[in-house]
């Protein structure tokens, strides 16, 4: 096999790789703060006192991995089937399937609960284009 203009091609490939990999070596060594969503609102602490643990709708692991699909299913159930009660598969409690009048009544800290991870992984769910987020006090800036 004969390669014509090998030099130019390899230089081209090198330039391309250098360009495409820029974000990686640019960020090498820099530590991004790990997202730490907070589940410490007064309502959640109250819940923990009452039930002994912080588990809510489903287990923590399930919610971490599947909350987006759970919310999707909730929305379909509420809007399209008109069924608004959700029975947890982990603790068999009954929950109101609602973002504004369900989830956010306990998780009233949207910035530290939702945005913390969403910003980190740069996902922008459009929930809050319509749904009204709970009012949060601005954190005092030092």
């Amino acid at each position, binding site marked *: 096999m004969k390669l014509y203009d090998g030099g130019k091609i390899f230089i081209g490939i090198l330039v391309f790789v250098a360009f495409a990999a820029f974000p990686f070596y640019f960020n090498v060594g820099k530590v991004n703060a790990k997202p730490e969503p907070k589940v410490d609102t007064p309502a959640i602490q109250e819940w923990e006192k009452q039930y002994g643990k912080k588990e809510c709708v489903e287990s923590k692991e399930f919610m971490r991995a599947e909350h987006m699909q759970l919310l999707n*299913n909730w929305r379909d*159930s509420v809007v399209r089937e008109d*069924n608004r009660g*959700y029975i*947890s*598969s982990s603790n068999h409690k009954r929950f*109101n399937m609602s973002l*504004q009048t369900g989830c956010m009544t306990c998780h009233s800290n949207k910035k530290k609960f939702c945005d913390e991870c969403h910003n980190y992984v740069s996902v922008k769910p459009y929930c809050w284009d*319509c749904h009204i987020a709970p009012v949060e006090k601005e954190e005092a800036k030092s």
Partner: protein
Amino acid sequence: MSMDRRQFLKIAGISSVLGLGATAASATHNIWTKGLDPEQADKNKEALIAKRWAMVVDMSKFKTEDDFKKVIDACHLTHNVPDFRNADGSVNKKDEIKWIWEAPYEKAFPGQDNKYMSEHIKDMPFLVACNHCDNPPCVRVCPTKATFKLANGITMQDEHRCIGCRFCMAACPFWSRSFNWRDPHGKNPNGEPFIKNENKEYPTRTKGVVEKCTFCTERLAVGKLPACVEAAPKGGLLFGDLEDPNSEIRKIVTNQYTIRRKPDLGTGPAIYYIVGGSDHA
């Protein structure tokens, strides 16, 4: 490496089979492909249940301009309906969002008027809203099934699915649907927000979706009557199950003479009007 046609086809065939296998494997992951397990979803105990929700509007109970205003404001406040007003207070007809509003007789009941009718009825503002038809043309034309019928007769609207094509607005013979030409979260030139008092228990909408009356499904689900019914003068708006022979509204519809808007179109409106009556006309 050289490859003949036969080898290429073999490799392509095997990789597509492997690809299909991967898809099938991921499909077994339940929650992403199926909706909620039916056993995990139910209605609230206090929810109001009906086979066919319907409404009776008794015009004789509405006496003052204020009676109408209260009803309209109650609905629009409950559902965060934006008030797209210009700086001078005027409203562009096109921009207006209305879930329930007033219409004169000849607009509400075209073809059912005559020139000798009492001025009173001619000038009376009729409360009109989505009729939650039996056979709704808006549902038939919706390309995304964003609007659909619930089992209880309500014509529901799923704003998550609405792509803003406005076919439903063209199809609805009652002008019951409004399009958000402007961003409801914006402000008018005077700096007043379009949604003045947000109801934190109900979502808003975005620019580019169609909205309308939902017969307050969210209130029925917690055992409350629709906001307009609560705000209306006593007996002015009646809400109930038309399929239940013992319900108040069924008795009224059976025993009294009621009219509906444009019944000849065959859409089967579920709002019945008592016009005239003892107090009026």
